[in-house]
């Protein structure tokens, strides 16, 4: 029983990391209808921004976290302006967007390696929160895990509020229904797209800092974000609650497979399940076709 609960906690904690990352994929997909693989690179940059704000400028944690999130927002906007906007202007097919995004993600990874003051070695965040876990009986809950869970929940809550209750949020919803019709109704879709990238970038920054704190910072962080992309598909691309639920489920499935079957079958079972869900329900768990997407 203890082991079951401990594994459940492990799964929730891994899932909440995926969730923060998956939201960015879903946001962009809901508007632009393509998978922005550059998101992984932006998360990696977020981890580095946070690391340098904390170690080089010695900023307090909250300032560094926000600073990293704002920096990655700007980075995401720059990526959109330089890489995707020219394609949009030329009305390029979606495949081109995906290829461009992949290229961008490889570019981001390699530019970090090429920068002389960063380079390929991995780095460790300074210890901000104690590593001794909170004990409940023989259960251990990491302080950082708890913090991540709380920060993720706050961020996701704010995002839902923003999308459901503000004017820009409504405009984002409208744009995700039908980008052409919204433009005809007087919504500045270009601005909406920038907002969505900025939001995605903001989450990427927070996810990057939290990931870097929990594990390490290295140029290949993007590889982990592939898992969160899969979680987003699992939950239904374009649906925010779907991305969160998909991520948490993936985290739990992975942990339980490792814990009760065999760690070697972890990815096998998780992905067989993924394919099965997509075959039975192609739009994912919560995805809705042609309906409310954001």
């Amino acid at each position, binding site marked *: 029983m203890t082991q079951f609960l401990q594994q459940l906690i492990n799964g929730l904690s891994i899932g909440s990391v995926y969730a923060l990352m998956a939201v960015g994929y879903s946001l962009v997909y809901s508007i632009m209808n393509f998978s922005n693989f550059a998101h992984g690179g932006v998360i990696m940059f977020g981890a580095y921004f946070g690391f340098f704000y904390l170690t080089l400028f010695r900023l307090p944690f909250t300032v560094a976290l926000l600073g990293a999130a704002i920096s990655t927002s700007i980075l995401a906007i720059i990526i959109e302006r330089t890489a995707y906007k020219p394609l949009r202007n030329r009305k390029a097919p979606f495949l081109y967007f995906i290829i461009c995004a992949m290229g961008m993600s490889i570019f981001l990874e390699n530019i970090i390696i090429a920068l002389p003051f960063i*380079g390929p070695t991995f780095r460790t965040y300074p210890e901000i929160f104690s590593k001794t876990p909170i004990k409940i009986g023989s259960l*251990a809950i990491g302080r950082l895990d708890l913090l991540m869970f709380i920060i993720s929940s706050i961020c996701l809550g704010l995002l839902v509020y923003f999308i459901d209750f503000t004017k820009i949020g409504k405009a984002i919803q409208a744009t995700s229904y039908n980008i052409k019709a919204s433009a005809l109704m007087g919504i500045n879709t270009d601005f909406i797209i920038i907002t969505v990238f900025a939001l995605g970038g903001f989450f990427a920054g927070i996810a990057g800092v939290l990931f870097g704190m929990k594990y390490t910072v290295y140029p290949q962080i993007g*590889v982990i974000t592939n898992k969160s992309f899969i979680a987003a598909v699992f939950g239904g691309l374009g649906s925010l609650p779907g991305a969160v639920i998909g991520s948490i489920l993936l985290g739990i499935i*992975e942990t339980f497979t*490792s*814990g009760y079957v065999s*760690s070697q079958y972890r990815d096998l079972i998780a992905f067989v399940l993924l394919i099965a869900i997509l075959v039975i329900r192609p739009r994912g768990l919560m995805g809705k076709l042609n309906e409310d997407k954001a």
Partner: protein
Amino acid sequence: MYKKVISLLLISFLTFSLFSSCNQKSAESNNTIKVGWMGSLTGDQAVWGQCELNTVKMLFEEINAKGGVLGKKLEVIGYDTKGDPQEAVNVAKRLTTQDKVVTILGPNQSGSAIPIAPVLEASKVPDIATVATNPKVTVINGKVKLYNFRVCFIDPYQGAVAAGYAADILKVKSAAILYDVGDDYSQGLTQFFEETFTKKGGKIVAKEGFKSGDVDFRPQLSKIKASNPEIIFMPYFFKEVALSSNQARELGITVTLIGGDGWPSDQLLQMAKNAVEGSYFVNHLDFNDPEVQDFKARYKNKYGKEVELNGYLVHDAVLMLVDALKRTGEPNPEKIAKALEETNIKGITGTIKIGKNTHNPEGKEAAIIKIVDGKYIFQQKYTPQ
């Protein structure tokens, strides 16, 4: 459009011819002996690769300042394998066919050292691997590979040392293993640890795997915790060691950890100083051995950094090569390979006497190191019975 295509083609031709003419020039100069090096300059093990290449450069400079070898200067051509076996094969091809090196030093990983054998055989250029400890690096199906050599001891030995030390000296009866399922090195150590430990009457109570690139090991560790081992064997590299040992302590696992030569690194102590306190690992040498102090100081003096484990081994690989060159009297790769088989020199990591049928240094002792107060403290030299 046509014009654009044509001009692009022309430009690419021009750049190509520029490069190729450069290559020819350097091939013509007869006053240098070109030596290849390969290893990770990027990726998880970049720290080690950079240290190896730095060491080779430093040693060559020192040798050249004293007049070189056979009256010629030594020149190193180093390429990055990114820790990727496929890239290692490409690099080996480039070094042997394009740069025409006489010998290759490195790589440090078994995963990269194993697949380059066919390239070496085709071009008849020998390779001296540094920390590639898998048996298959030099011997496959009971037959020795003619052009593969190494300066380090092998996994069976390392796994057996760890298991023997745990069972005979630390007197533990049950062990758990966490290992990387996708890595030859990790699998090799695991297999031989298991064999030796069970032969000595111990019991493996849990054996859990993970995949390279994983950062979270808590599911596996929770399972290991439930099996109540007296020691956990962690045969993989320092980054994962740091992450998994931190996570193990977080889950309330307090038992001793033991590992192999993938452990020693300054980064391990930076990341997981408290978690690995009191742990043991098998190493190629004792960092405080008087024999290595001179080299250690020279390296620190030149690069301002501590030398990593790989530096010591590539140092001895260079000694092996220079010794072989002196005995052959000419920079001919095939003759160097023959001469390497007769190597019997004293390196800073111990006596290196290459076995003809194994191409491994025979009878090299292992050092057992314990981490105490964030320092690597030498315990004893150990050979398993």
